[in-house]
């Protein structure tokens, strides 16, 4: 399954360039021309990555990123900044962005960052999936007990159940 990437930038040439580069890498790319449109797109579809400009006319990257974090908490957002200053990057990361890139974009750097971020997201999802499955397998709903000592016992059971060791 190809990863879906949302490119958000109010500069259409820049958007076209990013789409061309990422499509050439085999990703499925969708565009949005400001933060507002981006949020609506995220509400509708599930994206594996959002690549967003920090400075946009209608709803800047900072605000949009915070909104996206609420709509789709698992979707990593990579911020692009033209200032190249440490401060704006730190602000973006503090706001919850996954990483940042400085303009002009170095295509090699972009490719590596996208691969890494998608890989990270995949691992996170996998981890979450496994945990859920583990929880489902060791559902102690059949045993009655809500006291702390019983709960402790359930936890120990969940821990030792997958292992071969004798208890």
């Amino acid at each position, binding site marked *: 399954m190809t990863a879906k990437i949302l490119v958000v930038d109010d*500069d259409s*040439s*820049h958007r*076209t*360039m*990013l789409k*061309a*580069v990422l499509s*050439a890498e085999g990703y499925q790319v969708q565009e949005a021309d400001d933060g507002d449109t981006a949020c609506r797109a995220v509400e509708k579809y599930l994206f594996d990555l959002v690549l967003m400009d920090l*400075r946009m006319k209608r709803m800047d990257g900072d605000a949009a990123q915070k909104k996206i974090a609420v709509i789709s908490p698992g979707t990593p957002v990579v911020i692009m900044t*033209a*200032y*190249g200053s440490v401060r704006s990057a730190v602000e973006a990361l503090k706001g919850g962005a996954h990483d940042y890139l400085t*303009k*002009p*974009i*170095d*295509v090699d750097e972009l490719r590596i960052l996208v691969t890494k971020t998608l890989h990270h997201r995949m691992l996170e999802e996998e981890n979450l999936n496994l945990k859920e499955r583990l929880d489902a397998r060791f559902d102690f709903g059949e045993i009655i007990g809500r006291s702390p000592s019983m709960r402790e016992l359930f936890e120990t059971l969940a821990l030792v159940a997958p292992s071969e060791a004798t208890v």
Partner: protein
Amino acid sequence: MAVYEAARQSDLHHAMIMGGIVLALGGGGIYFFIVLRSYYLLNRTLQETRDYTRQVIASMVHGVLSIDTGGRVVSCNRQALFLLSMPATTIDPIDLKTVFDFQETGIAQTIDQGVPVMNREIRYHRDQDDWLPLLLTVTPIQDEAGNRNGAVVVLRDLSEIKRLEAQVRRTERLAAVGRPGAGVAHEIRNPLSSIRGFAYLLGRDHGKETPQREYADVMVREIDRINHVVTDLLDFSRPMVLEPEATMLSDLVDHVVSLVSADTKTHGIDIHVDCPTGMPPVSLDPNQITQALLNLMLNAINAVETGGAVRIRTSVLHEGEGVEVQVEDNGHGIDPEVQEKIFEPFYTTRERGTGLGLAMVRKIAENHDGGVGVESPPPGKRGGTRFTLFLRNMQTRAIP
């Protein structure tokens, strides 16, 4: 018996007169003593009051002079003599008319009509090209009967205030330049980013070592070059906030030398550090000065051939006014006509330079209320260049 009685009478009479005389003499003596004592006390109090008044006036930060109706100086304090750069021991009374233009400054009106001069800014020329900004206040001296007999002249040194005003203006000007900088960065880097990305894509479609691939690579490199200039320009125009702290200049110089040591080793360049370790700490912004010295050092290293030498020397200026750092090389030197332009932004003689290195040094020096100068060749030398960075010690500043 009558004789005896008469003698006794006369003796008593005599004794009484003698007693009266002694009493009068004693009383006179006591009175005289009291008068003398109070005279002495009065005199001493007067002297103390006079001394105290003199001390108060002498201790003032401002120059104070009193003049008579003819404009001659009757009395003045040390600060007044210092500001007017006059010798402390003059036998002849100074005629203030020879120092100030009485009509222009309004002192004439104060003496003739009793109209005071309030806070007038004047330029006092110490000599041909050195002048001092002074704030002049002149008030008439009047006795109880209302007779004017001269005036009091108060001189306030404005040079520190003028200097701070100039610094504020400079910072404001730089801030005005720096403000649109952030927006400009966005407007330039966005299109650069698009072009760079497309150039990369176009190049990728062609095999390695094809001309098309090479052209695309050139495009990418040139875009990086434009971006480099934009970055330098933004750094240059960004208002610099001075964050001074007590810094050991020798440590700072050692740090700068260590930063360039890799460069000097590969080129076989000798670095001489002449920096006394016992120097007191100087109040300066260590980050800015590191950058300034680094720029000067890199220029010096660039100017010398392999096997050349670069010398960095620090010294404290007299009266702790500031410090001086000299960076000297024995390289190819700078032509006199070029020397005038080297501190201008974007002036460069190098193919890949942005021409902002020395402009930055000057900006940093001015930020420290100092300056930077160039001598090529340095005095007493046949070749090479010496840059002198002067930094005012900010701890010695005091606002009067």
